[in-house]
């Protein structure tokens, strides 16, 4: 009897202890993070997810959350593998208050589109993902914020035109696109052709097989082609090898223009001196001089809650991309709260917030991000949001911005995007939305 009483007491104590350990979900907005901190792409993953978490921490510590709603998150390691990303999705999708998914992986994002559409939760693919998901009429829950691959292509060609003195000077120039041998690398092939036809430059597109650790033959072909510019549409090890091999065949590095996945410190540091002078596109400048970065250093790292182990990486390309991604997610929640109330929102309500995510340069400045990124103007049918791009040059130690904010030629790209989205809608039997279909479902 005594034993039984002791057991009951112990069971009660254990139950109370478990109850105390369980998280409280009232007024919390949850971010499930399919991060990759080990494996071949860990350098990018630690930077991006580190920046994202640093910004969420800043909002929690400085403001007490978004209008009192605390931001929470949980990480699931994917090692950048699609099946692991899907497993993390299935494991965390039922957590209360999921705001949005941010996998930073083309493969995982593709695998999630049907799932998040069914579950009515936004999928954010900042600077990457399906180009045609820009068309919010067909992809209501997918947001390739700031830059899709077609806009990137147009931005790069516009930058080259600026350097040459105008688009009319592109006629007769020779541009070679060196692309990664993957669906990602091949996605822009028709758009470069479209722009070559439009502006009259000569175009050659050369594939580098994955992973790209050998490029001698490709660069000898580039030298023989007498290219004026090479666009590097690389990934991972392909980028430093391209820069080193360019040096080996005597191609001038400042005439190599990197795309948005060839623009990080991880892409240039391994190339050493061969990378000095290399130029790459970006949607967010690097460096820690921006007020929001300074606040993160002071408030988050000062409180010992910084996410990066190596503080030298604060302000790096991937870290700043994570911070900008954090700003966009938080502002979407803030905008949605103005309509639905200052409480935990459903995924569909956050989707509405993203579809009204309009941050002009004044609002960007108020957020402490002037110069870090330009602006965004997402609407129900334009899920990219007309992000501007800038170009930065590697000086051997850090990136330096060398251009103004450049606008891609969205108008000429939109018909191609709509055509592709319409084909997707027909294939998947999707009803194309109109502006009357944007209300939040009950």
């Amino acid at each position, binding site marked *: 009897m005594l034993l039984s009483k002791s057991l009951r007491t112990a069971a009660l104590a254990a139950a109370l202890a478990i109850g105390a350990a369980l998280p409280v979900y009232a007024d919390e907005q949850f971010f499930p993070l399919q991060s990759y901190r080990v494996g071949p792409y860990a350098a990018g993953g*630690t930077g991006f997810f580190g920046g994202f978490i640093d910004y969420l921490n800043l909002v929690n510590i400085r403001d007490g959350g978004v209008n009192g709603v605390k931001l929470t998150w949980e990480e699931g390691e994917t090692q950048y593998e699609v099946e692991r990303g899907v497993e993390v999705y299935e494991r965390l999708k039922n957590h209360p208050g999921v705001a949005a998914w941010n996998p930073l992986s083309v493969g995982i994002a593709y695998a999630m589109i049907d799932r998040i559409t069914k579950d009515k939760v936004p999928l954010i693919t900042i600077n990457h993902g399906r180009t045609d998901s820009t068309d919010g009429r067909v992809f209501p829950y997918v947001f390739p914020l700031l830059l899709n691959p077609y806009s990137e292509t147009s931005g790069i060609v516009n930058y080259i035109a600026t350097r040459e003195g105008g688009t009319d000077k592109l006629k007769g120039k020779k541009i070679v696109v060196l692309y990664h041998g993957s669906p990602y690398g091949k996605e822009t092939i028709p758009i470069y052709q479209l722009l070559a036809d439009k502006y009259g430059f000569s175009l050659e597109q050369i594939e580098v097989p994955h992973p790209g650790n050998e490029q001698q033959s490709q660069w000898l072909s580039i030298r023989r082609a007498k290219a004026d510019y090479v666009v590097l549409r690389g990934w991972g*090890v392909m980028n430093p090898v391209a820069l080193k091999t360019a040096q080996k065949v005597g191609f001038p590095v400042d005439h190599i223009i990197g795309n948005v996945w060839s623009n990080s410190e991880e892409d240039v540091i391994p*190339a050493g001196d061969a990378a000095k002078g290399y130029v790459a596109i970006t949607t967010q400048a690097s460096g820690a001089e921006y007020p929001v970065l300074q606040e993160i250093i002071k408030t988050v790292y000062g409180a010992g809650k910084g996410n990066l182990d190596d503080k030298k990486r604060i302000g790096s390309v991937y870290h700043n991309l994570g911070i900008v991604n954090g700003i966009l997610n938080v502002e979407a929640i803030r905008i949605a709260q103005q309509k639905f109330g200052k409480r935990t929102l459903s995924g569909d309500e956050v989707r509405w917030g993203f579809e009204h995510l309009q941050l002009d340069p004044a609002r960007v400045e108020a957020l402490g991000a002037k110069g870090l990124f330009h602006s965004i103007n997402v609407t129900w049918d334009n899920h990219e949001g007309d992000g501007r791009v800038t170009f930065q040059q590697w000086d051997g130690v850090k990136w330096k911005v060398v251009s103004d904010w450049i606008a891609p030629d969205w108008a000429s790209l939109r018909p191609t995007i709509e055509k592709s989205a319409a084909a997707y809608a027909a294939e998947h039997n999707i009803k194309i939305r109109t502006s009357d279909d944007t209300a939040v479902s009950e």
Partner: protein
Amino acid sequence: MFDYQFFIEVLVGGLLSGVMYSLVAIGFVLIYKTSGVLNFAQGAMLLFAALTFVSLVERGVPFWLGAGVTLVIMVALGVAVERVVLRPLVNQSPMALFMATLGLSYVIEGAAQLLWGTQVHGLDLGIKDIPFEVGGVLISQFDLFAAAIAGTLVTAFALFFRYTRTGLAFRAVADDQFAALAVGLRLSRVWAAVWTAAGVVALVAGLLWGARLGVQFSLSLVVLKALPVLVLGGFDSVAGAIVGGLLIGAIEKLAEVYVGPLLGGGIEAWAAYVVALAFLLLRPSGLFGQKLVERV
């Protein structure tokens, strides 16, 4: 009109790239020759060696001391692999041993990241990769340096195998393990020495490949370049690894430049495997591999 100068440039570039493949392939050959194990962990060892070296140097350790310390670590790793992985698996099937090395590669890759972090590193060996011109053909200084290192390594191994007792023991074990045991050779000691030698090769190859690609996780993927070299040259011949490397390097570069455009480009990775497959059908033991004759 056919551009002979360009052809020679592609050919020379391919041959010099092939030398780099040979460096990786030699590590495979050493272990396969003496134990019959296809060591899939060779790429991970290469990554581990390069990452250890560059991490030490970045922490202020002088270049040669860093190389020495890394060498000691690679020797320790070789001995540990023999003790922990190979010895318990004596008399297991070749497939079991292969799977063990596959698992080992993941363990080494994980340990490398756990110890030294996930950041990428540049590695400067002091050899500039600026080309010089010979008769209108650009030749890479770095590739020539790598070829000289590979040549030195092969010569050193040839002398070692021929003129040292340990080298003789290697050859005896490679020839017939049971006969070697019967005459009193200690198999475990020979295998530990072989894995140590493979560790040394991994260090040399890791430094050269690391200087070329940067020291990062994908360094372990260079094993994929070694496999067709082994099929072509033979799994148990150091000379085969060299000749196979040169052939694969030249063939893949020429194929990419002259056949690639007809097939949409990007063919060099699988073109090497097409050649290897063809060789496997015609000459399963490779150019220099030992022909296996078994009485049934």
